[in-house]
């Protein structure tokens, strides 16, 4: 009788465990979870960490979102800006460049022709300066959209910023494609000298809405 590789590997694993059973363990989860911080402290921590990773940070309110986004895009010379299909159109009401709505059938090379992209975000972690994008959310879009263009402007509602990693991870829907972003793409491969923007966006601008 012929055993498949699957049978063989699983049998080996069982044999190994019969030959040497490891110590029974219960996982001690004494590390910090469920932390909260007042808005102001969370904001300060998040901004500090973002800046440390060389992201550019702007704060605004729900009412000034459109004005600040228009200003950011203008400052970076973005004439053609991609948006995911579900982005609130009011956000780009003050933008005078061309807005290109993304869809699954747009080939990746076309994304390369965009000057930048504006998206929302799912959740963030203040302590590490990390933004989590949920690829299944209509205002964040498929993964290629935030990867190919050279400028990513990401809107973060302060209410979605969690204190630490466990608190942020708990907000995720595991089956969705999720991208964690902490600052712009970077490498230290050449003599340990940090270089920004190897393959992902060279510029990350985080627009934090403090009352949203």
């Amino acid at each position, binding site marked *: 009788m012929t055993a498949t590789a699957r049978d063989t590997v699983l049998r080996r694993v069982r044999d190994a465990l019969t030959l040497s059973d490891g110590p029974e363990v*219960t996982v001690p989860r004494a590390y910090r979870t469920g932390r909260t911080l007042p808005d102001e402290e969370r904001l300060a921590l998040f901004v500090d960490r973002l800046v440390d990773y060389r992201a550019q940070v702007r704060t605004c309110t729900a009412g000034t979102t459109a004005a600040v986004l228009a200003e950011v895009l203008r400052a970076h010379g973005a004439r053609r800006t991609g948006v995911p299909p579900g982005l609130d159109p009011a956000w780009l009401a003050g933008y005078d460049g061309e807005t290109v709505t993304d869809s699954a059938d747009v080939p990746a090379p076309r994304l390369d022709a965009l000057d930048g992209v504006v998206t929302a975000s799912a959740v963030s972690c203040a302590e590490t300066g990390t933004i989590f994008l949920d690829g299944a959310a209509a205002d964040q879009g498929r993964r290629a959209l935030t990867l190919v263009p050279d400028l990513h402007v990401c809107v973060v509602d302060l209410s979605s910023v969690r204190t630490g990693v466990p608190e942020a991870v708990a907000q995720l829907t595991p089956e969705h494609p999720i991208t964690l972003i902490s600052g712009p793409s970077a490498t230290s491969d050449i003599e340990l000298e940090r270089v920004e923007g190897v393959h992902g966006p060279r510029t990350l601008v985080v627009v934090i809405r403090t009352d949203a």
Partner: protein
Amino acid sequence: MSSPTGPAANGTFLGMPAVPPRSPYGTGHLRGERTFPRAAHDELDNEQLRRNLGKATHSIRAKRLAVTGELPDWEQLRDAGSAIKTDTMNRLPELLEQLERKVTERGGTVHWARDGVEANEIVTRLVRDTGSDEILKVKSMATQEIGLNEHLESQGIAALETDLAELIVQLADDRPSHILVPAIHRNRDEIREIFLRHIPGVDPALDADPARLAAAARTFLREKFMTTKVAVSGANFGIAETGTLAVVESEGNGRMCLTLPQTLITVMGIEKVLPRFEDLEVFLQLLPRSSTGERMNPYTSLWTGVTPGDGPQEFHLVLLDNGRTAALADRIGRAALNCIRCSACLNVCPVYERTGGHAYGSTYPGPIGAVLTPQLAGMHGAKDDPNSSLPYASSLCGACFDACPVKIDIPSLLVELRHQHTEQSGTTAEKLAMKAAATVMKRPGLFTTAQKAAGLGRVLAGRDGTLSRLPPPLNGWSDSRDTPAPPRQSFRSWFASAEGAAAMRAAAAEGARNTDDAPQEDS
């Protein structure tokens, strides 16, 4: 392949447990051509390597200490990480089956590979099925271990590494020297030369500024990302509960490969499975801080099977054994499987710092390589198997244990491997140990007194705090002499006593005499 223990396929008769096989001899990259002392001796002559490595390890080390010190619950995270991995190994069969089920439910296909040869064949077949003859690679130790690129090349399939350092290494037809910064043995001028020679259409005016070198790689690879239909990656974690896979990276080449091609093939060692999605909350804190010394690496991608309209529409997961079950069958050695490949142990190792990664002859260098490589591939594949010298490539100073985010007691594993080696081969362990140590440290006298005396205590004391027998290199000395052998008492109290101190001094002097034939250039 026929099953030696009966018709296991139907699950009714499993027979006696058989010791699982190591990675087949002569395949992949789990064995060097020379023993560690010989290889190390040559590497020691490489001044540039030593300077670059010294700079790299010290700077990453400082960053790691700063960001781990920032977390008041770092030790609790280590405890959790260690326990999660131990629990994972205990439950590996059910977790692997669960992972397989979840990935399949979400539109992926799972393949199993008994060894590297089989994994290479599976990947080759999957690539052929797409009609493509080129693939993109995300830096992955598992595929390096099995020699996937070389195999694909022999089958007419071109594999292009997309991580900047891996690209440099590949273009130069070189080998990585560090897990994290594989091209650390190259300086910017060399990299410029390599790019000028090997990147088609590169600007001949390219200078050696790292930003411009990185930009040249960006331009070269961007076109490939847009046009190549198949990518092959490894995985940092595979979540059994949800079927989610994770790749942790910095440059964005991983995101490109995981997102743009039509077909994604992920090769993952079976030990990389994690039980719960929630476990990511631990490892997403442990890994980046231990690895690059960052609070978080720039990019982490999580994907589950296939998502219509987003990313690869065909996904294959290849689960690789290649000696992992052999390691699992070793009650002590199995702890090496808990490794999350952060490279913190390399950066704190005084031996690694002097020799670099090439001397270990394996995909896995440094302290963890010295235990993982013999566990996966064995130490007795041939007479004078180079892997049998790896357990001696350490001063047992214990720095690796302290640095390890999942608390792998590497010094104890090394001592255990030395036992296994001497028992099976009858070699005089103290000679090997002292030779390795002397070659590396160049100052055997100082080494034997300072390093040994400082570091051995923790290793010798054993789990019950008592010492029954001295490990190599000291066992030869204590077995063959009419000396007060250390009694069964707390090692620490024996060590602290005048008798213990005298015995250690004598052992050290003996060790130094044994290394007379080792190269020395003491200052």
